[in-house]
Every structure is written in structure tokens, then in C-alpha cells.
């Protein structure tokens, strides 16, 4: 094979290879990166080379970035770090536990959504969100130590919640977990009694449904059996914002 003539314009596959190898200057890079977003065939070529060279990247030793990097990412995205969920999942064990839980719970939620909303037998042309396919928010509730506790999927049109716990042992004092919603600046409202080891669909009291909106906080407290449901009296064991 003779060496390619460097004055010949390269093929798309060669351009993709050069982009991934990293030998192009910034002007060529930004031109080709724009093409990746617009041209599916070219994007496939780039994906091919990325996949081929990816093993080299996994050889690079990980280096823990300084804590300020996360703070700055939050700032760039316009987030306040004090928001719930930013207590920090320290260490890889917490990460993998969380990731595995997300993975498993998402599967459960997917099955539930599919059962609730069987797909229409005829495809509906042009309809992105056909009737009966209401979008459903998933809220994660976290323990104070940053480990996940419950996932709650809200079905706004039905006034029901799917509540999936990360299984824990029952409370040693026999108290039962109770789910509350705390609208911004308001007192907690009782939503339902929930399980600490079984997923279940619970009905939301009609007067509370309007409170299940973005920005409200879902919290679980441990309450003695037979306690009144006006306000939580026991400890809050998990919370998360919708």
C-alpha cells in the first residue's frame, strides 16, 4: 500500500478517524463536531472510531478531582448546592449501591407504567404524547447519609403513587413509615402509609393531590401505630424534592 497523497481531500471515514485521533486544529474540529450533530451517517463514522479507540481511554489511571469541581459544576448549571439531593454520595460503594438501585427500580417503574398504559394497538401518527400516556415524574427519597430510601412515581391523572422502597428492616420500635408532602413554605400534609420492604401503589387523598408539584418535598417519617395523621411526630428518615 502506497502512502496516501496528503494533498487529496480525505474521505468522510478518514475525517472521522482524524477527529477522534485528535490531530485536527480547532477550526476543523468545530466544523466536524457541528457535522456530527447534523449528519447521522457521519456521526456513525465518528462513533465507529470512538468505539475502536475507547479501550485506550479506560487504561488511564483515575484521579480524584478536588471537591470544588462539583461546586463549580452546580454553579455553572445555576443550581444551589443546598438543594436536597446534594448532600453528597461519598465513595464508590455508595455510588454503585445507588446506581444498582436506580437500575432495578427503573425496571419496576417501567413495568408498572407499561401495565397502567398499554400501548395503543394502532400507532398514532404525529402524536408524541397520546391520551393515556401521561408522563410520570420519579422522585428519589434519600436518607441523611446520602443512601437511597424510596422512589416515588407520581401519576398525576390518577391521583396514585407507585412507592418502591430500598428494603430495610422494620423499625425496632414498631413504628410505621408515613409519607408526607411538604409544599414550599407550608406545613406537611399526610399522603399515605408506605412499606419499607414492598413496592405498592397508594391512593393520594384528593385534597393533597394539588400539593404534589415540582418544588414540593416528599418526606417519610416513622410514626407510632394509630398516630393521628395531621402532622408528623416521629423522626424524618428520608426526603427528596419533586
Amino acid at each position, binding site marked *: 500500500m502506497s502512502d496516501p497523497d496528503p494533498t487529496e481531500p480525505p474521505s468522510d471515514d478518514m475525517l472521522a478517524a482524524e477527529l477522534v485521533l485528535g490531530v485536527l486544529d480547532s477550526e476543523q474540529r468545530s466544523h466536524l463536531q457541528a457535522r456530527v450533530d447534523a449528519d447521522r451517517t457521519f456521526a456513525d463514522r465518528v462513533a465507529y472510531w470512538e468505539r475502536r479507540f475507547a479501550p485506550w481511554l479506560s487504561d488511564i489511571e483515575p484521579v*480524584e478531582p478536588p471537591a470544588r469541581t462539583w461546586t463549580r459544576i452546580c454553579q455553572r448549571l445555576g443550581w444551589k448546592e443546598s438543594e436536597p439531593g446534594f448532600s453528597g454520595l461519598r465513595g464508590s460503594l455508595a455510588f454503585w449501591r445507588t446506581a444498582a438501585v436506580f437500575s432495578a427500580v427503573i425496571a419496576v417503574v417501567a413495568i408498572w407504567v407499561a401495565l397502567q398504559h398499554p400501548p395503543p394497538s394502532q400507532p398514532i401518527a404525529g402524536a408524541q404524547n397520546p391520551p393515556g400516556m401521561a408522563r410520570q415524574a420519579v422522585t428519589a427519597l434519600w436518607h441523611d447519609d446520602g443512601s437511597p430510601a424510596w422512589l416515588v412515581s407520581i401519576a398525576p391523572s390518577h391521583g396514585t403513587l407507585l412507592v418502591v422502597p430500598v428494603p430495610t428492616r422494620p423499625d425496632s420500635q414498631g413504628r410505621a413509615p408515613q409519607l408526607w408532602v411538604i409544599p414550599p413554605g407550608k406545613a406537611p400534609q399526610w399522603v399515605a402509609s408506605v412499606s419499607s420492604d414492598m413496592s405498592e401503589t397508594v391512593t393520594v387523598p384528593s385534597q393533597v393531590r394539588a400539593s404534589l*408539584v415540582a418544588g414540593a418535598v416528599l418526606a417519610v417519617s416513622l410514626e407510632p401505630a394509630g398516630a393521628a395523621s395531621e402532622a408528623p411526630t416521629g423522626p424524618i428518615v428520608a426526603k427528596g424534592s419533586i
Partner: protein
Amino acid sequence: MLDAGTTSRSVGQGTPLEALLSQVALGNREAFEALYRGTSGQLFGICLRVLAERSEAEDALQDVFTAVWRKAAQFDATRASATAWLAMIARNKAIDRLRSLPARKVRTDLELAQELEDPGASPPQQAQTASERVQLERCLDQLEPRRRALIRAAFFEGCTYEELATRLESPLGSIKSWIRRSLLQLRECLGP
């Protein structure tokens, strides 16, 4: 109104990382933080490999995760694994930043020369038997040692053709045609 960006319609399948990415695509910040905790070390390592200057690598890592937050919906598990997709974003952001730096911050000729003198350099994780790795190394082994080293240096240093030509004191045209020929050979060996 419930957040319309959050839906369980397009749930992720497969690995935990892919499931997390699909949650990030839906605007789930807890999933995003979990993703950061789990992958920022690897991605920072990649940024540092391209950008020797630590503060630049930190800025690049911020570019990476803001891009991941915004582009998570574009992740396509049929094209790449989540790990490879994230790693390539890190490398791209690091190279974009490298290109915007004054030339003096680029690595020295000496380091590049040393790298080129070590054509037998092999990846540190020999034991890893992933088929894509085996195939990549097998195909690289078919290149002339010096060209194999050039491809590795180009990839890991993020050098442009012009920089490689200057450092190796070779004509730009020769560098281009060596690399292009190597890429053609790799393409042939790696297959579709």
C-alpha cells in the same frame, strides 16, 4: 404542574451507568450527582492526560459534566457503552480546551520524543481481555513500530498534525500521509 422533563417513558436498560444516564436525560439531579461520584475520577484522569496543567484539567472536567447534563438525552446505547461515551466527551472537551491554550502550555518535545522512542509501550492493563481491546492492539501491532508510536502519541497528547510535524522536524505532508496510511491500515484490520 409536574415537571414535564421528568418521565419514566424512556427508561434505561442495561448497566447501572446507562440507567443513571437515562435518568440524567430526564433531569434527575440525584442521578446526575451519583454519575459524577462514580465517573469523575476516571474522566478527570483523561482530562489530565491531555492537559498537563491541573487547573485547565479541572475546567475541562466542568465542561464535561455540564455537557453531560445537557446532552444525556443524545446518548445512544446502540452506538457506544456509557463508559466509552463519557470518556470520549472528556477527551473531546480536554482537546477543545488544549486547542484554545497558548502553545507554551502544550507538552514538551522531549516527552513526545521519549514516547516515540518506546514503540513497545503497551497498555498497563494487559490482563483485560475485552475483545475490542485485543482487536485494537492486534491491529496496531501490524503497523510499523514508529507509526504505531505516532498514532499513540497523537491520541494521548492530542497533538495537531502541525504540532507533530514541528516536534518531529518532519514535513507536514509526510506526517499527514503516515498517519492517514496508518488509519487506513487500522480500518482494514478492525473491520466494520
